[in-house]
């Protein structure tokens, strides 16, 4: 649909950009525009091009396992950055790399941004599940901070522009992620990720698990995670009971029944925890 009354704004810096948006939330910030152009339902009054706002960067402080990613950084920029570090496959950066690499297609990953993806948060997001395993703060407007799970719930209720995300990950944990989709290029039906430690007597410690693609986009339940703690890695029955008795809260969509998704997830998660840990 072509509209005449929409305007484009290209502010000179981030301060100008978020103030423009706060003054009129109907002027929407643009990331890679892949989400905006999906709906083509332009009810807004204008667009903000963030290209002059210096939001494309990755800064890492290896000593404190902290990584800061600017909102306009694309998935491919994150992928290339991680590939050039000495990451381990089962580290946080390792699973972030494999998650983002399996999203969409190479040219789309040249466009999709971290900020746009977090705000848009499609049910097939490949970004969100790994992020829930770390301690993530979303920095927006005049350096305000909100933690990721609050952001996911509240993001549509307050005008803001994301500046960057700060990821604090635990280097001692081992990480794993897996995607379920019909074909490689297809959207993810769901993605689960988990991290854990093992005690010297081969018991699971500090288990954290998150699943995207559920009814509320992300499933993250501390009680569910706690049930794994102290479980012996040889206790297959205990593991089966924890996973198969849980309700992961999927919804039925045009392709799959909620029950089908739930059963596939349970089988894949059970196999992964059994084989990986």
């Amino acid at each position, binding site marked *: *649909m*072509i*509209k*005449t009354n*929409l*305007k*484009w704004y*290209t502010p000179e810096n981030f301060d100008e950009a978020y103030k423009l948006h706060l003054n009129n939330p109907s002027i929407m910030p*643009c990331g*890679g*525009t*892949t989400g905006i*152009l*999906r709906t*083509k339902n*332009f009810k807004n009054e*204008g*667009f903000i*091009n963030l*290209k002059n706002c210096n939001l494309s960067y990755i800064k890492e402080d290896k000593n404190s396992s902290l990584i800061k990613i600017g909102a306009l950084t694309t998935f*491919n920029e994150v992928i290339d950055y991680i590939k050039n570090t000495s990451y381990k496959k089962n580290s946080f950066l390792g699973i972030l790399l494999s998650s983002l690499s399996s999203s*969409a*297609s*190479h*040219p*789309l990953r*040249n*466009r999709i941004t971290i900020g746009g993806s977090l705000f848009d948060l499609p049910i097939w997001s490949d970004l969100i599940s790994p992020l829930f395993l770390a301690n993530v703060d979303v920095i927006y407007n005049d350096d305000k901070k909100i933690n990721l799970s609050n952001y996911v719930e509240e993001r549509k209720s307050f005008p803001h522009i994301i500046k960057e995300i700060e990821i604090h990950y635990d280097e001692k944990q081992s990480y794993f992620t897996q995607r379920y989709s019909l074909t*490689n*290029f297809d959207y993810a039906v769901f993605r689960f990720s988990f991290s854990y430690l093992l005690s010297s007597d081969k018991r699971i410690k500090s288990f954290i698990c998150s699943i995207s693609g559920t009814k509320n986009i992300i499933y993250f339940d501390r009680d569910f995670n706690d049930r794994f703690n102290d479980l012996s890695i040889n206790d297959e029955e205990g593991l089966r009971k924890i996973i198969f008795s849980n309700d992961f809260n999927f919804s039925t969509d045009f392709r799959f029944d909620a029950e089908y998704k739930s059963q596939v997830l349970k089988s894949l998660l059970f196999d992964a925890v059994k084989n990986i840990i």
Partner: protein
Amino acid sequence: MSTFGKKKNYKKRLEDKLNIKISLNINGEEIQANTSATETLLNFLRRIGYKDVKCGCEEGSCGSCLVLLDGKATNSCQVFAASCENSKVITSNGLGDTNDPHPIQKAFVDAGAVQCGFCTPGMVIATYELLTKNMQPNEEEIKEALSGNLCRCTGYVKIIEAVKLAADYMRNTKG
């Protein structure tokens, strides 16, 4: 109203809405043209004559609309033209044409990787981005670089061969 009248009316309405002037470099030429706030780069390019940029799905899924936008393979249907002020766009014809084909275009012909040809401009652009970064890609890397390009005719085998051949041609040209 006759179909012609309707078309004329649509053209007039469209022209009224093309109220944003942008300057950008397309295939080495400085271009100034008008666009609307919501026109995609794909529709903009085709409207001003760059018909080698193909319109397939307009959803980001098929890759037929790929161009190099500031050096990166980009689905032009996923970008607003109005956001491309001062950008550098290269379409498949900007790399080479029938008289003076780019080694990638030559390789696609030589390998028999073109049937109907609809996907070819997008394939060429995706290959170009890959080979400018990696002159000796393995099959996995080729598949990954072409992951956003669909072809309904060839079955991909000859396309992958074409990319390998293009890499040979480009290495030889460089050497």
